């Protein structure tokens, strides 16, 4: 049942969902893989977004590392359902991935995409594919199937073209949104970003 070869699976079951997940097949990477990111976090508590810069690495399996090197140094590792967070000058914090459902959803979607595991995506999310800009540009909007998860997570948007992932947009239920620009796009993070500007950037990146 597990689709090891994503394109082959897609070919076998040409359903709507499989078709929607078609770009995912091209995104599969062999771990370990890493990319730089720039993240803007919009929160209802704040009148302007928080910006951080760093690298995101996937070490295979459900192991992910998010390293922030600016404006401060912070490393977050996710492994075996445990999150370990270390910020320079502070004690290391541990918490269960379970306590952070949206982080877990991000891990699930990202690992599924990077490993080409469309089954995992299908079991957890409703997905919807849009093509825009040039023919190669696409966005994949994932909404959680579980009602419990839906209470804290609105949706995850993956933006890319052909075989590249440019952006991850995570909308949490309370109106908080974080937008990660990946790879070369990270360098194009504005000094004072707005949701609209970043959204446009994600759709038009070429």
């Amino acid at each position, binding site marked *: 049942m597990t689709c090891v070869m994503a394109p082959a699976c897609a070919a076998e079951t040409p359903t709507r969902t499989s078709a929607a997940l078609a770009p995912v097949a091209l995104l599969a990477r062999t771990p370990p893989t890493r990319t730089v990111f720039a*993240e803007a*976090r919009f929160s209802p*508590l704040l009148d302007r977004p*928080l910006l951080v810069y760093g690298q995101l690495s996937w070490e295979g399996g459900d192991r992910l590392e998010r390293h922030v090197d600016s404006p401060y140094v912070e490393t977050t590792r996710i492994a075996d359902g445990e999150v370990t967070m270390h910020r320079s000058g502070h004690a290391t*914090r541990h918490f*269960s991935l379970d306590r952070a459902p949206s*982080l877990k959803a991000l891990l699930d979607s990202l690992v599924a995409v990077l490993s080409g595991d469309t089954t995992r995506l299908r079991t957890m999310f409703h997905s919807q594919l849009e093509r825009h800009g040039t023919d190669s540009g696409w966005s994949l909007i994932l909404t959680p199937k579980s009602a419990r998860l839906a209470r804290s997570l609105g949706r995850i948007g993956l933006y890319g073209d052909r075989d590249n992932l440019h952006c991850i947009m995570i909308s949490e239920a309370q109106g*908080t949104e974080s937008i990660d620009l990946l790879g070369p796009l990270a360098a194009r993070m504005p000094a004072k970003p707005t949701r609209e500007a970043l959204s446009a950037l994600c759709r038009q990146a070429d």
Partner: protein
Amino acid sequence: MRAPRLTLIVLWLLVLAALALVVTRNLRVSTDLRSFMPPPATADQKLLMDQIGNGPGSRLLLVAISGKPPSALADMSAGLAAALRKDPHFTQVVNGDFDPARLSPELLPYRYLLSSTLDTHHMDAGFLREQLQQRLQDLASPAGGMLESWLPRDPTLELLKLAKRWSPPDAPKVRDGVWFDARGEAVMLVQTQASGFDPGTQRQAIGALRKAFHGLQGSREAKLTLSGPGYFSVVINRQTRDQADWIGRISSVGFILLMLLAYRSPSALLLGALPIASGALAGLAMLVSLYPQVHGITLAFGFTLLGVAQEYPIRLLSHRRAGASNLESVRGLWPLLLTAIASACIAYLAFYASGVPGLQQLAVFTISGLLGAGLSTRYLLPRVLPERFVDVAGTPGLARFRTFLDRLPRPRWIALLVSAGVVVMLLLAPGRFWQNNLAKLTPLPARLMHTDSRLRSALGAPDVRYLLVIRGNSAQDVLRRSDQVRPMLRTLEQKGALDGAELPTRYLPPLAVQRARQARLPDRATLEAALAKATDGLPFRPRVFAPFVDAVEKARTLPLLTPAMFEQSPLGQRLASMLVQRPGGWIGLATLTGVHDPVALAGLSQRTHGAVHLLDIKHASESLVAAYRTRILMALTVAVLLLVVTIGVALRSLRRAWHVLAPMTLATFLVLAVERVAGIEISLFHLVALILAAGLGLHYALFFERDTGDPQEQRRTLHATVVCVLSALLVFGMLAWSTIPVLRAIGLTVSLGVAFHFCLSILMAPHGARHET
């Protein structure tokens, strides 16, 4: 003749049935070790008796669920915790699903008084700014989503600090919302209402826990592992009972065969059981009419000691002679039997005088039991036994055995030789003389010990052996002293004397500390000004922290939190078990984890002028056992004196009394010496078994000493004694093979005792030698 005999049997059985009814209606057997122990003398012993099994550590059950994927185990852990939280058998259930949002809303406003932040910081612009800058970084981190909804009312995260403070110091990892150990088992801590050393009530609690577990979805494939003092007491009780039952069945069969072989009459076998049944029921009936509760161990001791009574019917059965009626036979036998019964009863009076409730109950049971068995042997049994029987004097081989025994040399120096041997053996004996650790008599299987230490370290559960006791005049006094001792404990932790301590102040600071914290809370205007300054230039929206300002304002005027108020909250039980009112004051009980240097901890007592001190539960309970033994030994000394006087008076000759008492005494010491040389440390159970053996030995010596001048009667005496010895060896010799030390202790001691008493009472009896001359 036949009809009255039957009527009497029926009447007898009816009386026994009525007694049995009274007993079963009224007998309350307590399994709580407290009702068995002597009255405590030292402060530690008193505390132990109050707290034994009630201490927070000893009421903990360690629970692990395994055998399924983690997510399924997590669901089961949550389900089990939910079920147990509703069950009155349990006072606390902790499985890691600590959710600050769910933490009792009434405690929420108290966070600024409970958390230690204000001890070291002022809620001024500088502190707030530093906190808010950290919160911005938190928000931008993957943990941001978890905090976002809390920040407006708690930007300094006091609630998280409290949650951390209130979770076990070395809590296991949380996975899918519940604790997991390194092996991937879902683990939890459950505190029972029942005392940890009360197997009866623990069994009910564990039964309820298992039932709740089996009611969970998927429990069939999952495995439930339990550990902890309460669970152990249940396991040990069951194991001991199972083995005793199993051995008892085999020896019963042997006993029946022996009786049939000896008397060749099933009716003799059945009727011969009536006196001992009468004795046991008389003893129990007397106990229930005098005491509201009887301790299980007292009963076990009592039934052991009542074993002497099986001699009575055997003596009657063996001493029936051809041409004489049962009544005539028993009349000939009675003076001697009465001497034995009366002297034993008088001796047990010494136990009654000991003042120890357990020993008093033992004396009441044994004396009534012996009298019941003795009197029914004298007045009832002869009237119901069939008058046709086989005279045992004609038993094949018996005459030859008697002749052989009579020809054995009776050197006078045998007493000296045995005494010298006893002294040498006692001097050479390895190890300690006394075994004070009752737990050693019922050791746990290594597998359970291993599981316990594994789960204990995984859960960071406290040590069951040590408790830190904090005394005070009031609950506040205790809390104040706990607060004072905290830095000392911290120092000891750093020196490696212990891994951690949980003081009552972890949950509730003393009023003075709360008051000081409250006084440090800024008023609304000051806080608003500080916040405005702190948020200057930070991206927080204006008035985002209004709920925080309100919460601080509310905390400024809250009535301070007292233990009584705190105990209403979900965490209240935890505090209640650590803060106890006792006659003459209050005590705080702090649990300790990983005690490496008890001596250093004991030193706290001196540094606090006795206000705080280390309670070594093992040491205190061992000193109680030693005190108990001293009482038994004292009672025994008096009993021996009483026995000497009784026997002397009954036999009206010191020389004859010597012939009875000397072999009995020597044989008793010989058993002691042989056991000691074999490396056995003597426990209370050995002592009780020695007393039983001495009681049996008294019979052997009395009967062998009796000179009837009739070889037939001598043979009957030998027959009766041999049947008694063999039956005792059958019952207790089987126990000696048990794998459970407590059963082995009783079995081995009685078997050795019976053998030595038999041999010495023959070798030291006078008349065999007289016949030869």
